[in-house]
């Protein structure tokens, strides 16, 4: 009680100059469509770190927070994009000295023969020190069907470094949720070292249209009215196909629309207005292969 009283005194902790972390969080909120649960978690983690810093300044020492994370979700749901922003947040708050992100997958970590894996994994870990190591589809490190697989060696080195070099490097594992859960079941050591789990939901059709609008705007293009309708139609068909990859598929689709628009404009063989140069038309979309199968 008396400790509380003295704490509620006039003695407030002077806020350090804002390291700009809320600006990064705000930018993430604005620039990324949807992903409400992810944004909430990012805000929570940022708050935790801001408060941890203030507590340390006020002499309230505690274990530094564990920062290793796991991002689960389908391809193209923004895991890599959010990891980059997370690296920036960690950097601004001083939990990462450099704030760079090294993105790797199994092939970058696991070797081909005895004695190859350890140096390979260590090489990657060294490059990531001072920043964030992003391991895409991390579950491929573990191959249950082959007990002599070199992946296990890589996992062990990772675990060691995640534990002993907490100040030097933050590890983010990424991949599909169900496979990641299986991976954690057979690697409880890995699960116990990961403090933050963020799940990235698939985008709705409406969100995908907004993502397309955003991407077009950044490229200084736009949909015509009929094109936006055609795009909705396109999405409904494309989303049913097996290789659909959320926002990544939208980005690829836009690349193809631009190609068709360019061809259409060149074939007109006449001077073009600024507007014509910008607008993607319905026919640029409707020529897509997804409309061939019904």
């Amino acid at each position, binding site marked *: 009680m008396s400790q509380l009283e003295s704490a509620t005194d006039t003695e407030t902790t002077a806020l350090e100059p804002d390291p700009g972390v809320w600006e990064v969080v705000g930018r993430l909120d604005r620039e990324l469509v949807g992903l409400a649960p992810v944004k909430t978690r990012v805000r929570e983690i940022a708050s935790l770190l801001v408060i941890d810093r203030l507590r340390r300044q006020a002499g309230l020492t505690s274990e530094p927070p564990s920062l290793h994370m796991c991002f689960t979700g389908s391809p193209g749901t923004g895991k890599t994009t959010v990891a980059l922003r997370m690296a920036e947040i960690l950097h601004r708050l001083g939990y990462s000295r450099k704030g760079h992100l090294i993105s790797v997958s199994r092939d970058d970590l696991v070797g081909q023969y005895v004695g190859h894996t350890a140096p390979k994994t260590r090489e990657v870990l060294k490059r990531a*020190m001072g920043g964030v190591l992003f391991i895409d589809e991390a579950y491929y490190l573990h191959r249950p069907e082959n007990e002599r697989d070199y992946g296990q060696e890589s996992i062990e080195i990772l675990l060691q470094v995640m534990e002993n070099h907490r100040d030097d490097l933050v590890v983010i594992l990424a991949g599909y949720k169900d496979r990641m859960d299986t991976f954690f079941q057979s690697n409880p050591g890995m699960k116990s070292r990961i403090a933050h789990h963020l799940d990235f939901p698939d985008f709705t059709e409406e969100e995908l249209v907004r993502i397309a609008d955003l991407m077009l705007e950044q490229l200084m293009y736009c949909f015509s009215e009929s094109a936006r309708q055609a795009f909705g139609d396109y999405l409904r068909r494309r989303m049913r196909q097996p290789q659909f990859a959320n926002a990544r598929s939208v980005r690829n689709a836009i690349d193809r629309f631009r190609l068709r628009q360019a061809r259409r404009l060149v074939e007109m063989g006449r001077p073009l207005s600024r507007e014509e140069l910008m607008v993607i038309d319905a026919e640029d979309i409707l020529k897509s292969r997804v409309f061939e199968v019904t």
Partner: protein
Amino acid sequence: MHLTQGTFSYLPPLTDEEIAAQVRYCLTRGWSLNLEFTDDPHPRNVYWEMWGLPMFDLQDPAAVLHELQRCRQAHPDKYIKLSAFDRSKGRQTTTLSFIVQRPPEEPGFRLDRLEYADRQIKYTIYPYATDEPAGKRYRH
């Protein structure tokens, strides 16, 4: 006898923080770092053994300190040297190198005199450590 070689040879041994600060300087210059070890302290011995490959593409000194720690564990009784290499065109040379570990005891060098024709003398130095075969030196 305290062996001195390379940059900072006039200073007392650098602490790990000081080593990290030097590495940080090298990294900001874009130099690659390399660790080597030996148990032959002769100043003309340029054939030190490499501890793994030279380290490229690093961002942070922690990585080098991590390797140094591993090298010290594997070779607690040898000399370890850290060197930096500038690969930029026109330079392509070692830019900095200093000793980061010494054996616990260093017996030093003997001065040998070779007397030959007409009472002339040639001088050479001989490390006491090399009385023992390679790999068996500095074990106390």
